[in-house]
């Protein structure tokens, strides 16, 4: 993966006006900028904490600064912070389409529809939003049956650059057993918070046990389901053998008009089944196609799903 800028300044500024939402607020360890659902607490001053780079300067107590010449952030009683866990699937199936270019509606376009790059942009954007709003953020990679690597948890807007640098050098590989990996994260992931799972959900064992484990741990879960255009509408045709990019296993199919119809129906069923399962469990589910500009996904689709405000 080339070390490239995941997004530009202009987009960053647009993202700064957003914030992540967790309906079932988890108790924060530190006072944050998030309104508590606890009733009866005053909105008065609660505490100071050290200024870290990226904190909102409006929150700086200028009087203390004038007296002590040290920056302190004024925390208010009813605000608390949120821990945002961003989980990124790094299985080989995310490294698709191989050339990064993909068909939109059957036609080849020049839009980058690579799933993993798309996932990274999404992760970076969401992490940036969370950092900007003063939340605690960690970005973790799911590889094989466990959480393989992790950035954070950190807070403060100054961390965006370091997060981007870390993201830009990630690689895909192997298969991911979502159930096992999510269960592993539930154990090792730390404080309960908002879990944003970014991946194609193409895991042979399914995902339900993993989601259950996360929710059992008290996390609020949002599944951001990525599929590339050629996965939604296959371009291959005729009598062919499909080779799995993760396992190398083959599957003989004859792709004709009827087969395309069946595939489309199967895919639709799969997505709606996932959506209804998540809905039933109180989790968010957002199906997205990598041909949709990722800014739009964040600005519109995630907003509509109630993940971002």
């Amino acid at each position, binding site marked *: 993966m080339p070390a490239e800028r995941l997004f530009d300044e202009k987009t960053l500024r647009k993202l700064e006006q957003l914030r992540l939402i967790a309906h079932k607020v988890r108790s924060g360890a530190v006072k944050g900028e998030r309104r508590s659902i606890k009733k009866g607490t005053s909105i008065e001053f609660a505490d100071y904490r050290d200024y870290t780079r990226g904190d909102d300067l409006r929150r700086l107590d200028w009087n203390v600064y004038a007296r002590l010449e040290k920056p302190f952030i004024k925390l208010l009683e009813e605000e608390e912070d949120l821990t945002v866990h961003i989980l990124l699937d790094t299985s080989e199936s995310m490294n698709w389409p191989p050339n990064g270019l993909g068909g939109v509606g059957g036609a080849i376009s020049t839009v980058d529809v690579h799933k993993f790059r798309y996932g990274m942009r999404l992760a970076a954007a969401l992490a940036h939003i969370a950092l900007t709003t003063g939340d605690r953020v960690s970005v973790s990679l799911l590889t094989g049956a466990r959480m393989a690597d992790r950035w954070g948890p950190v807070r403060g807007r100054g961390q965006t650059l370091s997060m981007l640098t870390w993201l830009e050098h990630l690689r895909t590989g192997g298969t991911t057993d979502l159930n096992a990996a999510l269960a592993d994260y539930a154990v090792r992931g730390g404080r309960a918070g908002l879990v944003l799972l970014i991946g194609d959900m193409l895991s042979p064992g399914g995902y339900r046990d993993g989601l259950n484990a996360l929710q059992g741990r008290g996390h609020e879960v949002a599944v951001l389901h990525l599929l590339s255009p050629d996965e939604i509408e296959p371009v*291959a045709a005729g009598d062919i053998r499909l080779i799995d990019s993760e396992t190398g296993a083959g599957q003989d199919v004859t792709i*004709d*008009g*009827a087969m*395309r119809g069946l*595939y489309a129906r*199967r895919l639709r069923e799969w997505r709606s089944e996932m959506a209804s399962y998540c809905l039933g469990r109180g989790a968010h589910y957002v199906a997205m196609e990598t041909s949709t500009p990722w800014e739009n996904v964040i600005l519109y689709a995630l907003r509509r799903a109630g993940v971002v405000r």
Partner: protein
Amino acid sequence: MSFLTPTFLALAALAVPIIILYMLRLRRREVPISSILLWQRLMQDREANAPWQKLRRNLLLLLQLLILAALVIALARPFIPIPSVAAGSVALLIDASASMNATDMPGGATRFEAAISQARALIGDLASDEVMTIITVGTSPNVISPPSGDQVVLREALRRAEPTQASADWEAALALAGASIAGRENASVVILSDGGLPDNLPALTVPIRYIQIGREASNLAISALATRPQEDEPQLFAAVTNYADQDADVILSLEIDGELLTAERVNVPAGKTANRTFTALPASTRVIRAWLSAPVEGGISDYLPVDDVAYAVYTPPASGRVLIVTEGNRFLQQVFSSFPALNAFRTAPGELPQEPFDLMVLDGWLPEKLPDTHLLIIAPPASTDLFAVGDAFTGVRFARQVDDPILAFVDFKSVAIREAALVRTGGWAKPLVEAVDGPLLLAGASNGRRIAILTFDLHASDLPLRIDFPILIANLLQWYSPTQPFDAADSLRPGQPVVIRAQAATSGYRITSPDGSEQTFSVGESPLSFSATTQLGIYRVELLSGSQVETEASFAVNLFSPDESRIAPVDAIVVGETEIGGKADRDEYGLRELWPWLAAAALAVLIIEWWVYHRGSTLPWRAEEKPGVASNQQ
């Protein structure tokens, strides 16, 4: 069903390589994909209706084998024998005479159309190695298709065939037919006709079949229409003939120069002719059109329309009245009395009579006002407003004479003239003969009349004693009153040629046919023989002098043929000594080949196969999502 080339059936062995290739084709191309997870589940679903899937997988193979079978069988040329009127080399003679225009066939079709559809059926029966020549028989036989086995060519030729309005020349047609199939094996002649062939046709060496066309005999015809002058008034004679087997009432209408003159009810007994004479027609009558129509209560069926209309042209007789005004020039009196068609009158100079004359000869005398008719002025004594007479000159020496029809066979060079007057015209007349001192003969047209001037007294020359004199007068008379430019009897038969003669100044002819089409000819050395008289009606002939119309006349072409008007179909015809019945038996056997159908079937299956390959065997409305454009990913 049998095969013409059964060896080609061995090509069925090609099925083996097709099957082998099909098996090879099933080694699938490998296409990488992010995950086969969804496809695996999909294939598990589809295992449920596996038998149908297996069949569908082999559908392409089945279709390909079907195409092969159709092509192989087509190459083997299967055929079924079918009874046919004629086989081998056929010369098809289609009667295109006037009677074939009769509309007695089912649906109001003409006999000719029925003959054409019969001919189409015959073409359809042709086997692939058989050839047909198609000849339409009109005034002259017309080979509309040379010997050909190509049914498309033959049908196209039939499409161009037209019936004529004339009688048919069967002798020439049979000779042509015999020549076209001469030397071919298994040749025969098929005649599509309503009969009416002459009895004395020469025998042919090949078998002849006669297919009778036509069903009815009922027909009324104008069998004659003629005019003649009767006491300076045109008189018209018309004859209406009833060819039906029952008496008939019919309305005979007359139209003169485009205006309806009369419509008269005529009763014609069966098989008889009714004559009518019309007198006291307008003196200006030129073109007469007569036609038959059924009376309001309806008459008998009149199946042939072309003989229900007839035309006549009235040509008033040339009166040829000539007045000679002379003191007593015997030469003049003699020469004019020698033309029998002329009525020559003589009077002494003085008062001119009031009666009209076609030509006045003014010998040495002029009235105060020149009469308004053609003039021959000899030795004018005084000037008029048309010319000036100057001094006389003697010792006339011949200078030149121009080349003009007036001077044909006339030589002035040796004519001795004692004295002539110097006459000058305003340019309307052309000097035809000139002496050194002035013109001797001038001729030209002024104000619609033609005027010739001899500038010397006949007595002062030896011209009247010479043979040139009557020739000159004859040429002048021809110039003064041109007669009709052609010899047409009362009416011509269709196809009959008419000879058109040029006149003095004619440079070309324009002939307008009844349908309005014009043909222009330039004057050649010999008189024009115009034979494109195939249409019935009035032909207008114009003699052109440059772009001016010099003379104009008309002639009529009418059918007037009892043979054509008698439309009753004839059951048998006689060619040579043989009588041939009108119901041709289908006693020959032709081959109807089936390969075009098989080839078409192969093409159809090929299209289906292509469609199945690209779209799958699912019908479009079963596809739940519109599949994208299929493109093979390499």
